[in-house]
């Protein structure tokens, strides 16, 4: 179960806010599991969507719950990106919870996790 609670002060457009958070989940997930720019001695070698994979429809979490804290007495805080920042650490925490190993470098690819576990 994926739960994201967001406090952005006064909520003006709840549908738009939900859409933004959903996007942030996918971008946070993408960073946590896939995204890394590779280099050789001379140049960037991540040059297309095969060498720089990102999250796809297959990666959408099965169950997602969003909690919108509507605090009308607070100034408008903006909701552009905050869940992205939290989502990647949440994935890393889940890996820690499952394995007891802290991995402090993204992305958490199968190879990286296997290496950390060995």
């Amino acid at each position, binding site marked *: 179960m994926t739960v994201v609670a967001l406090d952005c002060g006064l909520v003006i457009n709840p549908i738009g806010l939900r*859409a933004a958070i959903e996007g942030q*989940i996918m971008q946070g997930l993408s960073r946590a599991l896939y995204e890394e720019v590779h280099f050789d001695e001379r140049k960037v070698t991540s040059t*297309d*969507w095969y060498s720089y994979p990102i999250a796809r*429809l*297959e990666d*959408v979490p099965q169950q997602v719950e969003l909690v919108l804290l509507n605090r009308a007495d607070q100034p408008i805080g903006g909701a552009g990106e905050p869940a992205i920042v939290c989502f990647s650490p949440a994935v890393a925490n889940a890996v820690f919870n499952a394995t007891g190993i802290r991995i402090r470098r993204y992305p958490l690819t199968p190879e990286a996790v296997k290496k950390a576990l060995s």
Partner: protein
Amino acid sequence: MATITVNGKPHTVQASPDTPLLYVLRNEVQLNGPKYGCGLAQCGACTVHVDGQPVRSCVTPVSQVRGPVVTVEGLGTPDKPHPLQKAFIEEQAAQCGYCTSGIIMSAAALLQGKKQVSDQEIRSALEGNLCRCGAHMRVIAAVKKAAGGVA
């Protein structure tokens, strides 16, 4: 000069035979629904139907087009949208919208002749369509909604 049928209308191709279908659609037929994304058939933004099958128009030479072409503009009209177009609007299944045309065309191919689709079928069928904003959850919801309304 070759003639192709696009959204039910014939079009005489001006470009050379090796020109990607996408360029002909956008530059000659003035259909800007199909998008240029990666140009490598990796992202799906250029997806159109040829003879009912989804193809990546950015890597399809126009001379290889052997059947009628349908783009997102040919699926429905603003007055009478395709069930997928209607569902995508209702579910607000786009953020920047650049991938939307290709996703709708891939989904339309999936729904052809189907009464119901599972979550997993949608995920698999649209796996090759990349979305950078993260509209994925709404895309799944919209395709599911449309599946009920497609004959």
